[in-house]
């Protein structure tokens, strides 16, 4: 656990770098977090991030399949947007906790 200042906001993150409080998230924070993962965010990325934040805040379990059926991006596209672990990386950048799903 720790805090770090990012895009002018002091955020709490856990040991793995996931934000502890989703309400501290802003699009600017996302942009900085994405850079740490080597990703430059586009509008498409933000659409995915907003979708998974909505689902998370509604208390729904997130899966790759759910994002693939969102109409925003297919699964292949999702892997291209967030290479090397799309659901985990997207969750980290979206400021929500690490996904606990197996699919």
């Amino acid at each position, binding site marked *: 656990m720790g805090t770090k200042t990012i895009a002018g906001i002091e955020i709490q993150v856990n040991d793995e770098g996931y934000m502890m409080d989703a309400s501290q998230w802003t699009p600017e924070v996302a942009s900085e977090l994405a850079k740490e993962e080597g990703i430059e965010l586009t509008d498409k990325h933000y659409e995915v991030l907003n979708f998974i934040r909505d689902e998370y805040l509604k208390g729904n379990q997130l899966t*790759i399949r759910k994002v*693939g059926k969102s109409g925003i991006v297919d*699964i292949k596209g999702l*892997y291209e947007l967030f290479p090397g*672990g*799309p659901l*985990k990386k997207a969750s980290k950048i979206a400021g929500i906790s690490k996904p606990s*799903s197996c*699919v």
Partner: protein
Amino acid sequence: MENNNDDHRLKKISIICAKGALEDVYATLVLANGAVMEGMEAKVFFTFFGLDAITKKRMKKMHTATVGNPAMRMPGGLPFPTWLGILPFVEAGVSAMMRSQMEKLDIPPVDEFLEMITAGGGEIYACKLAMDMFKLTKEDLSELVKDVLTVGDFYALAGGEGSQIIFT
């Protein structure tokens, strides 16, 4: 992470699926999909009855065994007697019920699962020997099957640092 010379993380898994019951196939698919979700390389080799999972005519009809399966339970948890399992349609009914339970957990049908795995860069292979045995050709298999391999070909693909082979 501090010491990159001491990186023992898994980087690649190769999974062999030799059985065609619903639970064997799903164990394979969940492991493979989980690997690509984690950014790992995944290769799946279907052989013997496992070929059902990638055979177009059979992949949508996976069953679980209701006979000779001591872990089988009624929905309430009571034992599931073997004699019940031999009645017509019971195995189909139980299997359909399991599939619908999985759907609720967002676990997709076999064909869609294979699409998810390959969309993430996972690779699906079929065993040449088993195909010859079951008189199957490449045309009988899902388009997502990348190649038909001998066991030697499979081992050649399965190597590398941080790689493991799993037999389900």
